[in-house]
């Protein structure tokens, strides 16, 4: 498929369209609202589902096949966070705590972006290695920790003790559900997983459509805050995913992932956290402005990756694998 067909395959998928519906509904100030409890329930369901699916798949790989991708993932998390922190400090003259807060969000990962990417790859029949969900869990934490360390040492910062913040990150619902799901899937194996597969595999795509509708509503509401954010940071919110994605695809290539795997690692690196990072940063760097990173992550970077980033990194991964055509 050519680049335009890849883009169309992505933009016309139900999840991207329902996200667009959410944005449009927020734009016209519709009274449409997904109940909070449904949102929480769906996010638990989706995280557990990708964890378990990954866990079942993981048993088919030798540990030696996973070690290098895992190391690359941790290095990506740390590297992108340090890069962002340096860039924001030097080029945009952002204060140390705010630069660290942004680095934590952008170095970490968005599980929903990962899910959208797997759906896309399924649609274009270029699946990624089954152990990629484990990398989502791995990428979530390192960037948050290094960014907190950078921010706190540069501002001789206040905030909760580091140990309490680390506990908060590791015990957060996304890590518990992802890692827990991976363990359940790996222990149960394909055979014992199959009775629950109808709920966790087949219904999953439908649930995702409702979830993306809520994401669209939130992004649309948040978009109103963008007016108060400077141009430099808006550019950062698009440039960071491009640079991170390039590094991610390259790292995937280096450790021998397939085209689907490279695409996914690129998308993971390009995505920005809006669940784990905000809570950790709020406690670890209370002086940082909490609104800016969250607004940029949800209203700029998430839609960018969802609509353009995913097919773009796929194209890049193809190019790296096959050379320009």
């Amino acid at each position, binding site marked *: 498929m050519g680049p335009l067909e890849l883009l169309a395959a992505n933009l016309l998928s139900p999840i991207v369209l329902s996200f667009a519906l959410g944005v449009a509904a927020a734009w016209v100030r519709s009274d449409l609202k997904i109940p909070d409890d449904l949102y929480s329930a769906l996010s638990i369901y989706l995280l557990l589902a990708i964890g378990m699916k990954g866990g079942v798949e993981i048993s088919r790989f030798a540990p030696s096949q996973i070690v290098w991708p895992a190391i690359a993932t941790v290095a990506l998390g740390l590297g992108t966070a340090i890069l962002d922190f340096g860039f924001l400090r030097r080029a945009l003259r952002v204060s140390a705590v705010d630069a660290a807060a942004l680095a934590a969000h952008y170095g970490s990962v968005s599980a929903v972006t990962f899910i959208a990417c797997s759906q896309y790859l399924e649609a274009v029949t270029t699946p990624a290695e089954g152990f990629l969900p484990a990398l989502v869990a791995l990428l979530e934490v390192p960037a948050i920790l290094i960014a907190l360390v950078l921010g706190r040492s540069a501002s001789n910062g206040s905030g*909760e003790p580091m140990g309490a913040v680390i506990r908060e990150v590791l015990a957060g619902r996304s890590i518990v559900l992802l890692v827990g799901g991976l363990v359940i899937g790996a222990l149960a194996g394909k055979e014992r997983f199959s009775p629950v597969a109808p709920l966790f595999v087949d219904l999953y795509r439908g649930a995702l459509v409702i979830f993306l509708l809520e994401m669209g509503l939130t992004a649309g509401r948040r978009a109103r805050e963008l007016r108060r954010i400077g141009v430099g940071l808006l550019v950062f919110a698009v440039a960071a995913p491009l640079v991170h994605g390039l590094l991610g695809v390259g790292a995937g290539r280096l450790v021998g992932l397939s085209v689907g795997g490279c695409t996914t690692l690129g998308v993971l690196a390009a995505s920005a956290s809006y669940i784990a990072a905000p809570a950790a940063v*709020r406690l670890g760097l209370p002086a940082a402005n909490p609104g800016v990173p969250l607004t940029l992550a*949800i209203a700029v970077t998430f839609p960018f990756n969802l609509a353009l980033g995913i097919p773009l990194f796929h194209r890049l991964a193809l190019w790296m694998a096959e050379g320009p055509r």
Partner: protein
Amino acid sequence: MKTTPLKLVTVVAESVLGDRICEEMRSLGAKGFTVSEATGEGSRGLRTSELGGKNVRIEAVVGPDAADRILERLAERYFPHYAIIAFVHDVHVVRGDKYV
């Protein structure tokens, strides 16, 4: 009925602080507290802990000394950077010994 004069401390804070404030209150002498979800807006605008986040409202009936200690601790640790308000009412309760 015989009542005892005590203080009702009410704290409304961003939900990320909920558990911490309850722990602080207990360690500073509150025998119990009531927690409820709250929504609203203040000088700090949108909440951050969840998408479109929530606040918590924590209420505790305590003696006057404990009320002072709680307010001082909140002022020192949380007022500078977090979305949080706290205030104290005079209340009259039955079974006053239950609270101190």
